[in-house]
């Protein structure tokens, strides 16, 4: 499978605090990678560095062979290829559901209004929110907001979608509806990088699991290997807390 992203020796420090240390891994087309680990292990920072919302302190991020950190690549264009879904949704409060999904297409990708609308309706339909196009974000529940946020990211036709704890801000009832959408996406062949605390999702849906601890990748492998036969002591410790899940 063709490689979309390759992360090499990525480092991130906040002051003297090393948050990411020598991160290496690659994302191939069709991968669904779950990044797990305890809070503060650097999972979210890793995603934010990949999307360039945080500036990496060292190392390289190669997008189709081109280093995005050397300043030569158009940052905004790159971001349209690497979509992001946030824990706190970040829908635009001043637009309704439909406009949230079309505004980027119209102003960034320069698509026509009709084309943008058709594309938005297609993805809003996929996440089951096509009836709500006239609603403002404040009128939606958390789960509905997150589904719209996923549709908004998809409308930009990204090659990879990054999920930053997409269900952590939701109450248990709503987690299911968002996970269902993500499962469908995974099955449809979307390339996904998911930071999550949903171990069932990591185990059953992802093609690969990355366990992070203390700013490093402690272990990486197939879900079966990580969940049934973890090599590292730390991985075993972490997963033991989720037994019976």
């Amino acid at each position, binding site marked *: 499978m063709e490689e979309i992203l390759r992360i090499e020796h990525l480092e991130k420090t906040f002051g003297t605090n090393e948050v990411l240390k020598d991160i290496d891994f690659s994302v191939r087309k069709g991968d669904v990678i779950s990044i797990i680990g305890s809070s503060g292990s650097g999972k979210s920072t890793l995603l934010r560095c990949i999307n360039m*919302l945080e500036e990496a302190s060292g190392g390289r991020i190669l997008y189709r062979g081109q280093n995005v950190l050397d300043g030569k690549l158009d940052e905004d264009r790159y971001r349209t290829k690497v979509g992001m879904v*946030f824990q706190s949704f970040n829908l635009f409060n001043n637009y309704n559901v439909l406009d949230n999904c079309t505004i980027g297409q119209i102003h*960034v990708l320069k698509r026509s209004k009709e084309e943008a609308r058709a594309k938005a309706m297609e993805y809003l339909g996929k996440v089951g929110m096509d009836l*709500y196009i006239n609603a403002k974000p*404040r009128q939606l529940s958390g789960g509905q907001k997150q589904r719209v946020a996923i549709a908004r990211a998809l409308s930009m036709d990204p090659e990879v979608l990054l999920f930053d704890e997409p269900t952590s801000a939701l109450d248990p009832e709503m987690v299911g509806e968002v996970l269902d959408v993500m499962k469908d996406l995974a099955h449809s062949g979307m390339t996904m990088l998911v930071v999550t605390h949903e171990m069932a999702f990591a185990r059953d849906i992802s093609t690969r699991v990355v366990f992070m601890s203390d700013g490093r990748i402690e272990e990486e492998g197939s879900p079966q290997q990580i969940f049934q036969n973890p090599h590292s002591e730390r991985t075993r410790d972490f997963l033991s807390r989720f037994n019976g899940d």
Partner: protein
Amino acid sequence: MTIGEMNFFQRMVYIVQEYGASLLEGAATTMAIAIICTAIGCVIGFAVGLVQTTEPSKKAGVVKRGLLKAVKLLLTAYVEVFRGTPMMLQAAFIYYGTSQVFGINLGMWSAAIIIVSVNTGAYMAETVRGGILSIDPGQKEGARAIGMSHVQTMMLVVLPQSLRNIMPQIGNNLIINIKDTCVLSIIGTVELFFTFRSISGALYTYFEAATVTMIIYFILTFACSRILRWIENRMDGPANFDLATGDTLAFTSGLTRYNEKTGGTF
């Protein structure tokens, strides 16, 4: 019957009959200056507020950073000076200063508009800065994440929301401007307060003229505050939304209405 023989109400009626046209003209001038200057002041305020909340990008060189810092310093000086001195003195300073030092006669209208706009701009700059800072950083990140540039992010996402948040403050400024144009009488602008002084000077009926003029001022400000409230409500949009469906049963089933209390539709 002479003025001296009239009672309070008769005098008020007399003032309205004799000077109604001048009062209306004065009120119109006051409103025109207040509205134009609040609008220009908002534009200045947005421009200044935007620059002051701009962080230099990490890639920017030393020259760019230095330039931004210098511009910010200059704008801060502008804000502090115009907020920190009385508008009446600024009016005299600018109006007489330009004619004495530069030999330019600004004329009543341009002088009035420059002074009040620049003043409003200084106050609005701080308001806009606050408005921009009040927007959740997530809004910006959401916009950057779909590839919007800094300018697009500000124009399409952050500023519209800041504008909504600072609408009450814009209304405040408009009302302050309606009243504060009276200081322009120092440079001879014939607005409502100037008209009041002419009337009271001609008839020696200060109490009655003041009453009539106050009533007019109050009508102007009250009407403005109501209109602005209405605009705010329009900006918020309706509390309910309709499902986008042709299935009429979906509406009658009652699950489509937005519930204020729970914040959901179920």
